[in-house]
């Protein structure tokens, strides 16, 4: 999958295509749906990666050092699966806009 991670920098020459097809990788800003967001208690997190594995939007990055979890707020829908699945109950859902 490495190839796909690198966004091409050059603009290829264009040709006309007739009929329906999608060809521009785009995204809905699903983060705007969020009513709640996950908040991590770093003292409880064991960096096991369960939250990341089950996150529907692949929004959670687990670090080996420093702060254990980082979230991609542009796309996190606030579904709460991460908090529900955390084996250590280190994640809880808090209202969007509130402080931790």
């Amino acid at each position, binding site marked *: 999958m490495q190839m796909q991670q690198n966004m091409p920098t050059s603009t290829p020459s264009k040709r006309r295509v007739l009929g329906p*097809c999608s060809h521009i990788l785009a995204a809905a800003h699903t983060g705007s749906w969020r009513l709640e967001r996950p908040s991590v208690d770093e003292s409880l997190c064991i960096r096991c990666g369960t939250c990341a594995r089950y996150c529907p939007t692949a929004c959670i990055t687990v670090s080996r050092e420093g702060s254990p979890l980082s979230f991609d707020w542009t796309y996190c829908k606030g579904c709460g699966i991460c908090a529900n699945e955390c084996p250590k109950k280190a994640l809880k859902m808090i209202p969007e806009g509130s402080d931790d």
Partner: protein
Amino acid sequence: MPVKMFDGNGAAVEAIRLARPGVIAAYPITPQSSIAEHLADEVANGNIDAEYVRVESEHSAMSVSIGAQLTGVRVATATASVGLALMHEVCGVAAGCRVPIVMPVVNRSLVAPWSLWCDHSDTMAERDTGWLQFYCATVQEILDLTLCAYRISEHEEVLTPSMVCFDGFYLSHSMQRVDTPTDEEAWDFVKPYVRRNMYLDPQDVMFINDLCPTVEHTEMKYQQMMGFRRAAEVAKDVFAEYKQKFGRELHTVESYMLDDADVAVVTIGSMSGTGKYVVNQLREKGIKAGLLRICMFRPFPAEEVREALKNVKVIGVVDRSSGLGAAQGPVCSEVKAALYGAGVGKVFGFVGGIAGRDISDGSFRKIFGELLDVYEGKADDCNTWFDVRDDAMNIREVEMPC
């Protein structure tokens, strides 16, 4: 050029063989079945180097064809009647995704009632799905038009699939002599398949046929319309090249004795030969009769129809499908629309030849008789349905329980 003996289905198979498809997906249906069988034979004995996909329905036959051709190979399939009706949904996909599939369709009536025999209700129901439609009059034409259809459909400004329609049993099962190009001659004409538009290739990623919002859908249809417009021109170029290479003339419309005709019929498909025969008989009696055969129905050659019929006083258009609920049968509707405002004579629609009922020389004599009555001022109108039994409304009477 070798002369071979083929029935209509055999000619279709020969044309497909000459076009060297890479994937064949066919489901048997009377009267198309021998196409599905012979294609399987040709693959089994190595005359066609193709994958033969023994699909479980016509819907899958067309679906397989679309998927396969989008990988960059020419495909082959064929169907008839309710099989075409089952394909209807995916016929629209092939057209809308601009997959230039060429498909022989052996015309057979749609159910109900059940029938095994010929009329055009199957392909006429598909006339607005975005496919080119050619209607053959002879077995020779099945071979010729199928070969040409590849060139027309696959043209980069057309990219529109073709139905090559021919009458079930009348043509599909009638053995005729067919001038057949050699493999090399045909290949030189048809040429290898080249993917020109959308395709499935991990080296060049696109996702085909995603949801198209309203802001683009009209434009997609406009593109298809432009494809049809180009097809009308490309067909003439391809027919000209075909004539130059193989000596046979193909038409979008074929005029027969129309230059000085007072009365004429417009025909489509295998009935046309009988129509010409009756025109000859009438001419011998001094009656100025003529005939116009529609060979390409989609795109409809409106200008050619108008030009060909401009001096005819009374015209009868013979539809081989009932066009239920419409003001006219589908061919007549098209002809009338083409002639509207052109100041030509009167046009009457005739419906007959349903589900294998023969359109005989007698049928044409009756039709011409009615047209002549109008021409001579003895009548104002014609009977739309011809050769209908007198007891039509009472052909079943069942016992009542007491």
